[in-house]
């Protein structure tokens, strides 16, 4: 209980400090509001779990997880408070692009937009927010599909995914975060173009990598009843990164080729987009039929023509991962081509002409004009492709490898469905989906912070 009160007090203090830093008017009222909001935000999460993490028999790992939850709650509260204060201070830019619409009508009162939004909001609440909340609730319970009872287990289904060492559990992410913010701070202090700025950019890339390494280090390697989650994390990173890289690079390359004026271009373009209409399950079956060592077409042809026996991709971890990446990237290729084809039409031709006149090579034109003009599309595709790689590869994997060999192609979403649905272990499935949810939010925030800055939406 002492730990809980200490946590709330720290959150309140942090809230007051944050408010005084980020607010123009440092009135006592604001500081109290800041502290209060942070304290309430910090208490809300543990309160929903009946403060289970602070019961006497709980371990340091439980306390760490509870503190993380409290910090998140406090932070969310403070963000809300900050936007409220900013609005009070008139710091919010009122020109939110809706000026024209506001001028054109909607003078019927503040409630009109809400009424108009209500069908959508209702659907969101019923089909998205409620299940999401239930997933959070389930993740703290030991229960099975159709089981007569559920046993509250606090953070157990999370802590079993992590290493059993509180010191390292805190130290690794802390060091990675320090590195990340340090490198960014350094980059801001240096002059663009200077050598130290280049170095700081390298450091910032390394810092991003260190986050992945820290996560690798805190996930449990298994043994002694803990869930072997580290390999799942590694598989997810490798396979998702592979799908996104191959899918986007391939999509851009093919779109660039298909965009040129060629005879029958429309047909090519239609054919290229077509894989998008195929479901992930069918993509899995198609690649299975191509690559299967006994019944596959490629294996058969290799044997007939060259006398080469194709290795069984399901027996070798890297081949299996490659096969999954190839099948999934192929499936998303059509989608990427579609957007890149649309994007290529916005490339400013006058700039290209000017570049040609200035003697820029084809590669230089591509690198400096086309890629730059496509950056908003690329950013959008990065987000959607990553979502696809995280959430929609289940069927492809299920048909091609079922997670084999020895779990080498079992990515996060595959594990969730295997545990939660196939084995009926709802609590663990929910805990892992909460983890995936946090990961997706984390990756998206990171994308907005890094790629988002480099995206050019053009002028005007």
């Amino acid at each position: 209980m002492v730990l809980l009160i200490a946590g709330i007090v720290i959150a309140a203090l942090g809230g007051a400090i944050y408010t005084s830093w980020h607010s123009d008017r440092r009135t006592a009222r604001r500081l109290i509001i800041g502290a209060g909001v942070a304290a309430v935000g910090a208490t809300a999460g543990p309160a929903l779990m009946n403060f289970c993490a602070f019961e006497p028999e709980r371990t340091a790992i439980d306390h760490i997880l509870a503190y993380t939850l409290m910090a998140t709650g406090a932070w969310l509260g403070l963000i809300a408070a900050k936007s409220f204060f900013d609005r009070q201070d008139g710091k919010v830019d009122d020109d939110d692009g809706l000026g024209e619409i506001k001028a054109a009508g909607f003078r019927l009162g503040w409630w009109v937009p809400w009424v108009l939004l209500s069908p959508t909001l209702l659907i969101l609440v019923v089909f998205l927010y409620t299940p999401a909340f239930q997933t959070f609730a389930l993740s703290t319970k030991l229960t099975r599909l159709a089981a007569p009872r559920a046993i509250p287990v606090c953070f157990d289904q999370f802590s079993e995914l992590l290493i059993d060492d509180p010191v390292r559990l805190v130290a690794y992410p802390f060091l990675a975060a320090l590195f990340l913010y340090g490198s960014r701070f350094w980059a801001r202090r240096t002059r663009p173009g200077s050598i130290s700025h280049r170095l700081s950019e390298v450091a910032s890339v390394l810092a991003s990598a260190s986050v992945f390494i820290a996560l690798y280090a805190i996930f449990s390697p298994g043994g002694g009843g803990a869930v072997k989650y580290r390999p799942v994390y590694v598989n997810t990173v490798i396979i998702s990164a592979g799908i996104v890289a191959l899918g986007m690079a391939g999509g851009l390359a093919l779109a660039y080729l298909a965009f040129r004026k060629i005879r029958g271009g429309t047909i090519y373009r239609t054919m290229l987009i077509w894989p998008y209409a195929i479901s992930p399950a069918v993509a899995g079956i198609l690649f299975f039929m191509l690559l299967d060592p006994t019944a596959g077409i490629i294996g058969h042809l290799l044997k007939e023509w060259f006398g080469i026996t194709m290795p069984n991709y399901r027996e070798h971890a890297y081949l299996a991962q490659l096969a999954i990446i190839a099948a999934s990237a192929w499936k998303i290729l059509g989608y990427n081509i579609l957007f890149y084809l649309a994007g290529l039409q916005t490339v400013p031709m006058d700039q290209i002409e000017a570049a040609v006149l200035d003697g820029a090579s084809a590669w230089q034109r591509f690198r400096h004009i086309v890629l730059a003009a496509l950056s908003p599309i690329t950013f959008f595709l990065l987000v959607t492709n990553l979502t696809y790689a995280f959430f929609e590869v289940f069927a492809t994997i299920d048909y091609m490898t079922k997670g084999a060999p020895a779990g080498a192609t079992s990515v996060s979403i595959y594990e969730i469905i295997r545990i939660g649905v196939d084995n009926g272990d709802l609590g663990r499935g929910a805990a892992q989906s909460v983890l995936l949810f946090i990961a997706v939010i984390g990756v998206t925030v990171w994308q907005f912070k890094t790629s988002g800055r480099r995206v050019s939406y053009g002028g005007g």
Partner: protein
Amino acid sequence: MWRERTQLGSIRPVYEREGYDTASQQSVRCSNNKGSTVKKVFPLIALLLAFAMIAAACGGSGTTETTAAEGTTAAVSDQPTEIDMWIAFSDEARFNFTRDKAAAFNAKHPEYNVVVNSFDSYNTVFEQAVLAVDQGNAPAIIHFFEAATRQALDAVDSAGNPIFKSVTDAIGGRTEILGEPVILDDVVSAAKNYYTVNGSFYSMPWNTSSAIMFSNMDMLKKAGVDEPPATWAEVDAACEKVMAMDGAPKACITWPNHSWFVEQSLGQQGELLANNDNGRSGRATEVFLDSPGIINYIGWWKDLADKGYYLYTGQQRDWDGTSNAFQAQQVAMLVYSSSDTTALTQAGVDNGFEVKASFMPYNQDVPYEGNLIGGATLWMLDGLDKTTEDGALAFMNFFSNPENAAEWHKITGYIPITNAAEKLLEEEGWYQESPNSKVASDQLNAAKDTPATRGAILGNFVSIRDVITIAIEDILTNDLDVATRMADANVEANKLLQEYEALYGG
């Protein structure tokens, strides 16, 4: 934004650009021309439209429901009572057999209509049934595999009442129901031993098999092996010869990485998978995945794989891949379920080689205790009205009457489930015609009746089977130490069992 778009337009044909411009200008002009009244009215119209649509949608569904309800009430008198049956077979032979028998029953008893729905695997039908039970729209008859026995017994609805009713209780000593003789007392002992819970049948036996071995005799004879090997040592010796000959196959032997074969081997070696006599004298609360029997079996398995004798298809529970490898003569021997005896024998005829079935090879170093059954039974929902319940019971007894059980055996290779069916087949001379079909029954009859050969009944069995096959795959592909890896698996499996007991047990 405007300027940029127009610039872009300059590289496009002129007419396109003009079209684009005019359209946009028109739309701008339109909104300008609409007076202030329109501006105010428009949101209201939109609002009204939105509500109207919602009302229409809700009202629409409401009406359909009413009509449907009225329809059923009106038609109750002249429509037959529907009996839903969910089975885990979607292949032509087994699904068609079930559907044909349902049609025959419906023709014989026009007051009933048995409807068969098929699912692609035991796991799927199990998952779907658990969900359907949870939502309260479960079918009258559900096809559960042996591993789901404990969970089916434990299944309760939200009010805490059991989901399934004991068929013995429901039959209540009757010898025939709606004119269909009750076959339960005549069920062969191996199936009776497995499925007897607390002294009586809870579910209705149907497809029952055992693990047996199929050999490509042409290949074995070519290698100088005249009879299928019976023990592990004999398999090793035969494989050495097979792999040494000219034109050796890809590998010597294969079987699916399925926990069922591990369980079979434990029965052979007389060891228990779970405490309390394999969960038969009381609820199983502990499993033994690091027992000598398991270590021996997986050790022998890994040894075969290391020598290149065993073909691993790279997938768990790969029934298709292993069977295909045998049919394509990529391996000389296949340990498989007797359920495919007829198909595999025929595949040999089609591909020009002799297939001979024999007992599953056993460990020569320990006394042989016996193999156990596999397969599934039919569970009947509790709380059915008397008419439906009697119809379901009559159908299940009709479904496995001697003629039907014999036909089922011939089509597949599942053992004849009653003594009468076995007698009928003998009289017909079927076993002379197809000696392979007798092997599974003989193997089961050769088993001693002990807790080890009765097989385990335990909670979370499906997940625990997963733990076993994952560990085996890990051992085979990553070259791990069997004892260490199985000790890990044992911790994991016991955790799963204890959690199950915490949720369902006492």
